[in-house]
């Protein structure tokens, strides 16, 4: 059975010798699988972006592309583009170099406390940047723990790159680890028993198999790094300005939509080029793999094995030095009160924060509920996209369409959050002509979070779906399974097992308030990151302390939820879904 998009077109019900007609059910299913995500992306991403960028190119009702010559003629623009590419490339390289060994250790080896470490590395991913400012920068300033080393890291490019790696190592660990843990170890074992050194076996057998997942992770990380905004401003300042920070300044502070629109187009070009490159790398390396149950593939960590040893050392340094240090710093600071060490700041989490009208606890509940909505939407939409994109149509046009769809759903990660956020402002007052002002209703918050979480779901589920040997589906079909049954017993069964990872990822992205949500209006019920932001905007040691305690709460919530989502993947639970 080969399912191609071409064949999914409505066809005359003329059954040939081997049932050439496409039954309407399949047409409906694949049609919906393509249309539902496209409509979602179109309404909540493409339209707002087009609306705001369009405003930048229209002067007095006429098309005006003069902005291009103007903005692209400034030397500063090119410096910023160079800065963006350099930072994103270094951040991606660092995340991949540290993330791949960690993915091996955390997904291929077993050791006590593995689940806890896995959840722990995800925490940085959700921390609001104001908190990173506290957790990270207070280490780097003079008198801070690392400031005394004379490294002078505060306000440097190195600090920015370190922070980007801090944020994104989790992306690599999760994306690569998700595939690695299902990789059948026997091929590598065979190479080893034939005399290959561990390195040779890794290089010639495992690495090629992992390449698509690594390319996937690298492209995600690159997008996150290239659009990093708060991290860059908080840790480096505007001398390290990127295309993203420049769009932010031009849009929010100067309302120079013309310059912002040109920069948005520049950003789009960079992002599309990066995606095309990653797509080619993936396509070259992607193939069916022999997948297995994670439990079968993992082995207890072997400290004598040089391979495991390297993974242990790299992961220990990454986790302890890069991830734990700022987080421990945060926890330690949150325990400090005016009358010495204590839990005073945590006690205040249950009190209405100053006059903010909600307690951080209530805000945490709001965060969870919003994140749940966002996750449901993201998994539905992202799951459909992954399913469609996992198909390999025979016709070249079909393959191109699938690749295009794949890239399309990555765009929300690569387009400036402020462009999307301000786009909402000018497009969502009457969405699709409906008399419903979405801009101030709060409905948009989970939806905007889902837009950003969809690509994360796709990137997590897709490598696993694509690795399904087509022969498995063919075998199922030959044995008489209907396409629906094949889909259910083969695709869905496999996808569900990576669902936990995807759920955790989507949840984390939503809890961390990624993307355009920071520009959305908040009626009444603010989420936890918003409350933290508001607390840090007010003077007083108590507000500061409460903000830190709330940040620790956010981190703990994230780690807890990610850990629970991971448990969903255990075969017993997964197969019962």
């Amino acid at each position, binding site marked *: 059975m080969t399912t191609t998009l071409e064949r999914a077109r409505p066809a005359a019900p003329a059954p040939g010798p081997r*049932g050439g007609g496409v039954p309407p*059910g*399949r*047409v*409906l*299913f694949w049609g*919906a*699988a393509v249309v*539902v995500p496209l409509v979602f992306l179109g309404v909540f991403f493409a339209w707002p972006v087009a609306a705001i960028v369009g405003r930048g190119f229209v002067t007095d009702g006429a098309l005006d592309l003069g902005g291009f010559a103007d903005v692209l003629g400034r030397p500063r623009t090119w410096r910023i583009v160079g800065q963006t590419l350099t930072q994103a490339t270094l951040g991606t390289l660092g995340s991949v170099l540290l993330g791949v060994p960690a993915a091996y250790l955390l997904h291929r080896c077993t050791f006590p406390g593995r689940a806890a470490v896995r959840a722990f590395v995800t925490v940085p991913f959700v921390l609001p940047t*104001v908190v990173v*400012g*506290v957790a990270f*920068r*207070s280490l780097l*300033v*003079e*008198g801070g723990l690392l400031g005394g080393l004379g490294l002078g890291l505060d*306000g440097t490019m190195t600090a920015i790159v370190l922070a980007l790696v801090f944020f994104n190592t989790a992306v690599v660990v999760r994306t690569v680890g998700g595939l690695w843990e299902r990789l059948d170890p026997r091929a590598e074992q065979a190479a080893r028993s034939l005399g290959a050194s561990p390195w040779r076996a890794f290089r010639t057998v495992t690495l090629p198999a992992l390449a698509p997942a690594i390319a996937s992770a690298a492209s995600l990380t690159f997008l996150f790094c290239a659009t990093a905004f*708060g991290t860059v*401003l*908080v840790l480096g*300042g*505007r001398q390290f300005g990127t295309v993203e920070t420049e769009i932010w*300044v031009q*849009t929010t*502070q*100067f*309302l120079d939509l013309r310059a912002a629109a040109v920069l948005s187009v520049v950003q789009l070009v960079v992002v599309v080029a990066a995606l095309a490159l990653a797509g080619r790398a993936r396509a070259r390396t992607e193939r069916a793999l022999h997948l297995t149950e994670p439990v079968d593939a993992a082995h207890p960590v072997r400290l004598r094995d040089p391979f495991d040893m390297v993974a242990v050392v790299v992961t220990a340094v990454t986790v302890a030095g890069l991830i734990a240090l700022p987080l421990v710093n945060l926890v330690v600071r949150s325990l400090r009160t005016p*009358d010495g060490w204590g839990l005073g700041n945590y006690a205040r989490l249950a009190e*209405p924060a100053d*006059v903010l*009208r909600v307690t951080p606890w209530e805000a945490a509940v709001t965060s969870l*509920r919003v994140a*749940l*909505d966002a996750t*449901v*939407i993201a998994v539905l939409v992202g799951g459909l996209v992954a399913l469609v994109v996992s198909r390999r149509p025979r016709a070249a046009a079909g393959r191109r369409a699938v690749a295009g769809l794949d890239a399309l759903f990555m765009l929300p990660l690569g387009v400036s959050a402020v462009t999307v956020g*301000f786009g909402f402002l000018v497009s969502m007052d009457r969405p699709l002509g409906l008399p*419903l*002002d979405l*801009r*101030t*209703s*709060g*409905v948009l*918050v989970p939806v905007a979070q889902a837009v950003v979480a969809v690509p994360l779901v796709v990137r997590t589920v897709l490598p696993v779906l694509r690795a399904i040997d087509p022969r498995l589906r063919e075998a199922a079909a030959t044995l008489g399974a*209907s*396409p*629906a*049954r094949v889909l259910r017993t083969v695709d869905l069964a496999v996808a569900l097992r990576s669902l936990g990872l995807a759920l955790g990822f989507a949840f984390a992205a939503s809890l961390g308030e990624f993307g355009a949500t920071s520009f959305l*209006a*908040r*009626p*009444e*019920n603010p989420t936890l990151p*918003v409350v933290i932001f*508001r607390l840090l*905007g*007010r*003077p007083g040691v108590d507000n500061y302390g409460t903000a830190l305690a709330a940040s620790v709460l956010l981190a703990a919530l994230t780690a807890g939820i990610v850990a629970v989502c991971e448990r969903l993947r255990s075969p017993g639970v997964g197969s019962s879904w």
Partner: protein
Amino acid sequence: MTPRTTWRPGARALATAGAAALALTACSAVGSGSGSGASDDATGTAGGGTVTLVTHESFALSEGLLEQFEEESGLTVEVVQQADAGALANQLVLTKDAPLGDVVYGLDNAFATRALDEGVVVPADVTAPAAEDAARYAVEGDDDGALTAVDYSDVCVNVDTAWFAEQGVPEPTTLESLLDPAYRGLLVVPDPVTSSPGLAFVLATIGAFGEDGWVDYWAGLRDNGLKVADGWSEAYYTDFTAGGGDGPRPIVLSYASSPPFTVPEGGTEPTTRALLDTCFRQVEYAGVLAGADNPEGGAQLIDFLLSDAVQADLPGSMYVYPVSTAVELPEEWTRWAPLAEQPFEVAPADIDAHREEWLATWSDTVVG
């Protein structure tokens, strides 16, 4: 293939689409308590309906005040908070054809002229007695009273007096003294491009040294080891010695109202002090938005912001000084948070005309 099995994926697709649609609509119950859009249910009649207040992230009032207003006026107040003062003004300009609400609070004098010129706000019938006090802060050129001043604050350099006492170094007092090599590497300010107090401080230096002198002044600060942080929170909490984060720098740009918050537990006086010869006065305005569904409700809300109850609450809830002369300041404010006698001034129209040029010059000079 039996018809039954071919039917199923279609049904599942429909179910999926349905579930997605459901999920989309279900969110409304979560995202906002009331679930209704901004001002859809505003009736537009005085004394009833909904009034939507658009404001910045710092907006806060003590428990019960808004509720009391709702009870007395019969209005339901929806508060929509987003962005900082600068972004707020620009968002309002961008959405003026389809306003985000009925009334705005939190436009400051750096962005007031833009809001007026762009026709974002319209004159309103403000009847509160404190309106007379508010008129003293009226924006030049706003003859119809489209913007009503609600509060003000002085953005000033703050010093950690404990640090200076310990080091045996005399505290700086004026803008000029910050150039003294004795204070090398001690000052941190928020970036004026990304922070509204940061912008206010640049305006203070323009007011102090004039259009010809302020750039040299900043070059001097830069050469004297100035640190630029991203925002007020970063500067005050991470870089400042006395903000709570134990940073390394004892001189920070903050507010005249910050010192009372540094009275240590059990202590009797604050450990910081504002330098009152370094200040710029920020005035915050409220105004009814053009095209509002409920302009009468908006005007009532402005009256409410000028009421004694709110004016007296402002210092404690938003750390700003009330425009009303009828209310008393908290005791620790009169003691520890005096205002500048002669803050530096720049006319709002000048600010609006030159903001971008000044910030570009500032960036070239300081950030490089």
